[in-house]
C-alpha cells in the first residue's frame, strides 16, 4: 500500500477507516446506542414532573432510569475507547515510518533541521495527528449521530423549538473563531518558551564565567526581558478561551429562555419546560466538544504540513549529493570542490591514507563527502565521527547497532576492548558489554566513547573505514601499540582506511598522506616516507606548528 507519509491527509484518513473498518463500525454502533438511550431522558424528566405533580409516585419506573444509566456507561465507554485505540496505533506507525525515513536518508538532506526540530516532529506533531484522528473524528461522529437522533425527536414534539437553538449555535461559532484566532499567540509563546529554556541552559553552563566576571546583573535583566515576552504572548493567547469558554454557558441559558418563550406562546404545557431544558442539556455536550475541533484542526494542519515538508526534504536529493554524484560518476579518483578549487584524491585501497591540515581546512567535510559518495554507490562502509554519539544503551548494543552479536565477533570485541584500554570500564568482559553508557555516552569519557565506536567500525563488514581524528584521545605510545596490534591482527587487511589527524605521530604510522589547506584545497599528496624526507609543504606545516 505504500507509506502512509507519502499520502495526503484525506487519503490517510480513508486508509485508516479501511484498515480499522470493523473497529469504527463498532464505535459508531456504540455511539448510536448511547444517543438512542440518552434521547429518552428529556421525555422521562417530563413524565417524572407530571407524575410528581399528579401525585402518582407509584407509577414511576425506577428500573428504566438505572437501565438507561447502565446503557450510557457501557456504550459511551465503548465508543470512546474504540475511537482512541486505532488513532494511537496510527501514531505509532507514523512515528516508526518517519524515523525509518530519517534513518535511511542521507544527512545532507535534512541538514537544516536541528535535532530539536526532528524531535518536535516525531513526538509533538505526531501527537497532534493522533488528536485529530482520535479526538476530532470521535467528536464529528458524535455530533452527527447526536443531531440525527435528537433533532427528529424534538421536531416530532414541536419543530418551532428547534429555532431556540440559534443562540447556542451562534455562540459556538464565536467560540470557534476566538479559539482559532488565539492559536497564533499560543504558537509564538511556545517558540519563545524554547528561547527562555535555552537561556537557562546557557546560564547554567556559563554560570562560573558569569560569576568570574561579575555579570549577574546583565543576565537577570536579559532573563526578565525574555520571560516578559513569553508571558505577554501567554496572556494574549489566553484571552481566546477566557472570553469563549463562558460563552457556551450563556448560549445555553439564552436557548433555554427562548425555548421557554416559545413554549409559553405555543401553550405547550408547563412540563414542556422540563422537557426542553433536558434537550438543551443533551445538545450541550456534543456542541461543547465540537467547538474545540477548531483548535485541533488548526494544530493538525500545521503539524501535517511540517511533517510533509520533512518527508519531501528527505526524498529530495540535496545539492551536496548532486554535486558529489556529478563530480564522481564513473571516476576512479575522488573529486571534490575544496575552497573553490577542484581537488582530486586517489586513496590507496590497501593502505592507511591520512589527511592532514589545519583546523578548519575541511578535513571532516572531506571525509563526509567521500562517505556520501561510497554510500551512494552502495558500498559497505563504516564511519567514526570526531566526537561520535553513543546511544543511551549498553556498550554491546552500541557496538553491534541492532544486529545479533555473533560469537566470533564477540571474541574480537573482547580482544579490542583490552587493546583500547577499555578494560577499566567494568569488572569483567560481560559486565562491560552490559554497561549502560547513558545519553550521548555521558557515563564514559569522550575518549572512551570514541574507542567504543572504533571497535564498532573494526568489527563491521565494511570495505572502507573512515575515521575522523581517531587517536586524539590516546597518547603517543598507546597509539603506536594500537596500530601495530591492529596491523598484526589482520582486522584491517583488505580494507581501505581513511583518517584525519593533525599529529605528526599519526602521519608517521600511515602509508599515504594528503595535505589540505584553507583557501588552497589539496596541497600535496604522496607516500608518507618520501614526503617527510624532503623539504615539502607538509614538512613546513609540521615545523611551523612547533615553533
Amino acid at each position: 500500500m505504500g507509506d502512509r507519509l507519502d499520502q495526503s491527509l484525506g487519503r490517510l484518513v480513508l486508509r485508516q477507516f479501511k484498515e480499522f473498518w470493523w473497529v469504527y463500525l463498532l464505535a459508531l454502533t456504540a455511539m448510536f446506542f448511547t444517543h438512542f438511550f440518552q434521547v429518552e431522558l428529556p421525555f422521562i424528566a417530563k413524565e417524572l414532573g407530571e407524575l410528581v405533580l399528579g401525585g402518582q409516585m407509584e407509577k414511576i419506573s425506577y428500573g428504566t432510569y438505572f437501565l438507561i444509566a447502565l446503557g450510557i456507561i457501557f456504550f459511551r465507554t465503548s465508543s470512546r475507547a474504540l475511537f482512541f485505540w486505532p488513532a494511537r496505533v496510527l501514531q505509532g506507525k507514523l512515528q516508526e515510518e518517519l524515523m525509518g525515513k530519517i534513518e535511511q536518508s542521507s544527512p545532507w538532506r535534512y541538514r537544516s533541521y536541528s535535532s530539536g526540530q526532528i524531535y518536535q516532529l516525531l513526538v509533538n506533531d505526531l501527537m497532534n495527528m493522533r488528536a485529530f484522528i482520535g479526538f476530532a473524528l470521535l467528536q464529528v461522529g458524535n455530533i452527527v449521530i447526536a443531531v440525527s437522533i435528537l433533532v427528529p425527536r424534538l421536531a416530532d414534539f414541536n419543530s418551532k423549538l428547534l429555532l431556540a437553538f440559534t443562540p447556542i449555535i451562534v455562540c459556538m461559532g464565536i467560540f470557534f473563531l476566538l479559539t482559532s484566532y488565539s492559536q497564533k499567540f499560543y504558537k509564538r509563546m511556545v517558540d519563545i518558551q524554547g528561547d527562555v529554556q535555552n537561556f537557562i541552559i546557557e546560564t547554567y553552563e556559563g554560570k562560573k564565567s558569569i560569576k568570574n566576571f561579575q555579570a549577574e546583573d546583565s543576565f537577570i535583566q536579559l532573563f526578565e526581558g525574555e520571560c516578559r515576552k513569553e508571558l505577554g504572548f501567554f496572556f494574549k493567547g489566553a484571552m481566546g478561551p477566557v472570553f469563549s469558554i463562558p460563552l457556551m454557558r450563556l448560549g445555553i441559558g439564552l436557548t433555554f429562555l427562548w425555548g421557554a418563550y416559545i413554549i409559553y406562546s405555543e401553550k405547550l404545557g408547563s412540563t414542556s419546560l422540563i422537557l426542553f431544558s433536558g434537550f438543551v442539556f443533551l445538545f450541550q455536550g456534543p456542541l461543547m466538544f465540537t467547538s474545540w475541533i477548531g483548535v485541533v484542526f488548526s494544530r493538525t494542519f500545521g503539524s501535517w504540513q511540517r511533517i510533509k515538508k520533512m518527508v519531501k526534504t528527505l526524498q529530495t536529493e540535496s545539492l551536496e549529493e548532486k554535486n558529489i554524484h556529478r563530480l564522481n560518476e564513473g571516476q576512479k579518483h575522488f573529486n571534490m570542490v575544496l575552497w573553490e578549487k577542484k581537488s582530486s584524491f586517489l586513496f590507496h585501497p590497501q593502505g592507511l591514507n591520512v589527511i592532514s591540515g589545519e583546523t578548519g581546512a575541511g578535513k571532516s567535510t572531506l571525509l563526509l563527502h567521500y562517505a556520501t559518495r561510497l554510500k551512494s554507490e552502495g558500498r559497505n562502509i563504516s564511519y567514526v565521527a570526531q566526537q561520535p554519539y553513543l546511544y543511551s544503551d549498553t556498550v554491546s548494543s552500541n557496538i553491534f547497532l541492532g544486529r545479533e552479536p555473533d560469537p566470533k565477533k564477540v571474541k574480537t570485541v573482547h580482544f579490542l576492548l583490552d587493546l583500547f584500554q577499555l578494560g577499566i570500564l567494568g569488572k569483567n568482559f560481560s559486565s562491560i558489554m552490559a554497561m549502560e553508557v547513558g545519553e550521548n555516552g555521558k557515563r564514559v569519557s569522550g575518549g572512551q566513547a570514541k574507542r567504543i565506536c572504533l571497535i564498532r567500525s573494526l568489527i563491521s563488514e565494511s570495505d572502507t573505514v573512515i575515521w575522523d581524528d581517531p587517536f586524539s584521545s590516546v597518547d603517543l605510545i598507546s597509539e603506536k601499540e594500537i596500530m601495530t596490534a591492529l596491523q598484526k591482527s589482520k582486522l584491517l587487511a583488505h580494507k581501505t582506511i581513511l583518517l584525519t589527524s593533525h599529529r605528526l605521530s599519526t602521519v608517521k604510522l600511515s602509508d599515504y598522506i594528503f595535505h589540505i589547506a584553507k583557501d588552497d584545497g589539496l596541497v600535496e599528496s604522496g607516500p608518507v616516507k618520501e614526503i617527510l624526507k624532503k623539504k615539502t609543504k607538509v614538512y613546513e606545516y609540521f615545523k611551523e606548528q612547533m615553533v
Partner: protein
Amino acid sequence: MSTLKSKWFDIFFGKKSIPLLIVIFTCLGVSAYLGYLLPQKIADLFESYETEKNFLAIIQFLLMIYVAEYLNRILYNVTTTRLVQKAILRIRLYCYHQWLLRYETQRSKKEQKEFPLGEVLSRLMNDTEAIRELITSGSFGIFVDILFISSCLYSFIRIDRWSGTLLTVIESIFVVLLIFGSRAMAKTFLKVRKEIGFLSQTVADVTKGVRENYYNENADFAQKKVKNRFQKFLREQLKANLIEASYYSVAESLYPIFLAMVGIIFSYSPLVAGGVVASIIDLIQRSIDPIRDITGKMSNIQRAGAGIRRMNEFIESLKREVLIEVRARGEDIAFHSLEVCVHEFSYPLRDDEEGSFSLKDIHFKGKKGELLGIVGLSGSGKSTLLKILTCDLFPEKGELTLHTETQKIRFDFKDITALQNYRDQISLVSQDSHIFTASLSFNIAMDLERDKEVETFWETAKEKLPYLGIWGICPQDQIDPKELSMGQKQLVSALRACFLKRPVVLFDEISSGLDSSLEMALRQLVLLVQKQALTIIVAHRIETLIFAQKILVMDGGKLVASGEHADLILKNDRYREFVAHLRHSHEETFDLLLQNEDQLLP
C-alpha cells in the same frame, strides 16, 4: 509560621497584586449571589406559566442573570490570567535571581552538591507551566462553578428544605465517589506519563545519533528502538484511555440516576409545587458538568500546588547557601600586589578512599605587571590552587590579600563582604570559560550597554593582534559557540578579561595543540593583559615559562620551588621533570628537531 506564610505571599504575589485579588474575590461573591437568585426564579418561571402572570418579566430577569454571570466570569478569568502571569514572572525571576547568586563553594572536608540542570529547568519552566495550565485548561473556573452551584443548592434548601437537603447530600456523595475513583486513576496516569517520558528520551537520543550512523551498518537501530518504546507506551496509554472513558461515562450517567433520586425524594414529601420540580431538574442539569469536571480540575490544581511546593523547597534550599548580592561593582582600586596564603585545604573524603588530597603551606606574592607561572604534573594541586584563587574552593585556613598603595583588602574565606570586594578584582580565563550564544560584543563586555566601548576596544585590539583581523569577525556579530574552536574560545574569554581590566587575571592555559596563528594571538594577548594586571598562569607551554617573572613549582600539594626559568632548569629536579613531560607531549617537535637540527635552530 506566620512569617513564612507572608513570605510565601510575597514571593508569589507581592503588594501590587492586592487589587487583582480584591477583584477576584468580588467576582466570586457576585457569582455566589447570582447562584442564590437562580433557583427561585426558575421556580417562579414555572409557576407563572401556570398562573400566566409576569412570565415575560421573569424571562427578562433570568436573561439579566445569565448575562451578568457571563460578564462576571470574563472579569474573573481576565483577572486570574493577569494574576497568574504576574505571579509566574515574579516567581521565575526570584528563583533565577537566587539561583544565579548562589555561591557554589566547596569548603574543606565538606561536600556540596550543585543543582543539576534538569532540576533548575523543571523548577523554572515545568513547575510554572503547571500553574499556567490552570488558566489554559480553565481550572480556575471550578471555584466559580462550585460557589455558584453551592449557593444554588443553599437557595434551593430555603425553597424546599427536605428535597434541597437530600439533593445536596446525594450530590456530595457522588462528588466524593468520583474523587475517590479519580484517585485510583492517578496511578495509571502516572505510568502513562512515565512512559511518555521514556519515549521522548528515546526519540531525543536516537535523533542525535542518527546522522553519523547513516554511514554505518545500523540495521535500523533507531527505528527499532523507537518502535519498541512506543509499544510499551501504547499498552499503558490504552489502559488509561479505557479507564478515563469509563470515568466520564459514569459522570454522564448521573443524569438519569439523579432523576430517579428525585422521584424517590418526592415520594416521601408532602405537597409539591410545580416550580420546585422544574427548579430541581434544572439544578441537576446545571450541576452535572461541574461535578464531572471537579476531579479533573482538582488534579490540575493539585499538580500546580505540588509545583508551588517544589519551587518553595527549591527557594528554601537556595537560601541556605551563602549568597552574594547583586550590586554595582566596587570602584577600581589602585592595585599594587596580591598576597596568597593557603595553610591547608583538603577535599572531602569519599568512602572508598584512604586519605584525601590536600594542599598545604602555600605562600606567594605577585605584583602588578608581573607574569606568574604555576607548573606541576597532573595531581600536583595546581588546579586546586587556581580554584582557591577564584574562591570556588574555601580552605579552612588561609587568606588572600590585595594591597594597594594605601590599604588592604583581606579575605579570610569567612567574611562575605570581603569575598565580594576581592572577587571584584579578579577574572578567570580557562578552558571552561563559557562563550554565550549572543553577540561578540556581549561576550566581551557581558553587559548590554557597553557596545560602544567594545567597538573602540576592538579597534585597538585589532592593531595589536593581527589574528583578529584575519578572523574576520565584528563585535556586532552573533556568536555560535559550537562553531568556535577551543583556542578561539580561549581567545574571546581572554579578550573579555582584557576589556574588563581586572587587576588580577588568572589564566588556565590550553594543554592541547593549537594552530600557530592562534597560539601567537594568545601570547600577544597575555602581554597586553600583563601590562595592566598581575597575571597568574597555569602553564602548559615552555614558551610561556620562559617569559614568566616567577615560576611556582607544585608537587604533591606543596609549593616545592619558585624562581625564574633559567634558574630552575639548572637547580630543580621537579621542574626539569615537568619540562621533560611537556617535551614528551610535543614529541613530534623534537622528532623533527633531531632530524633537521641545523635548519630549525635560529
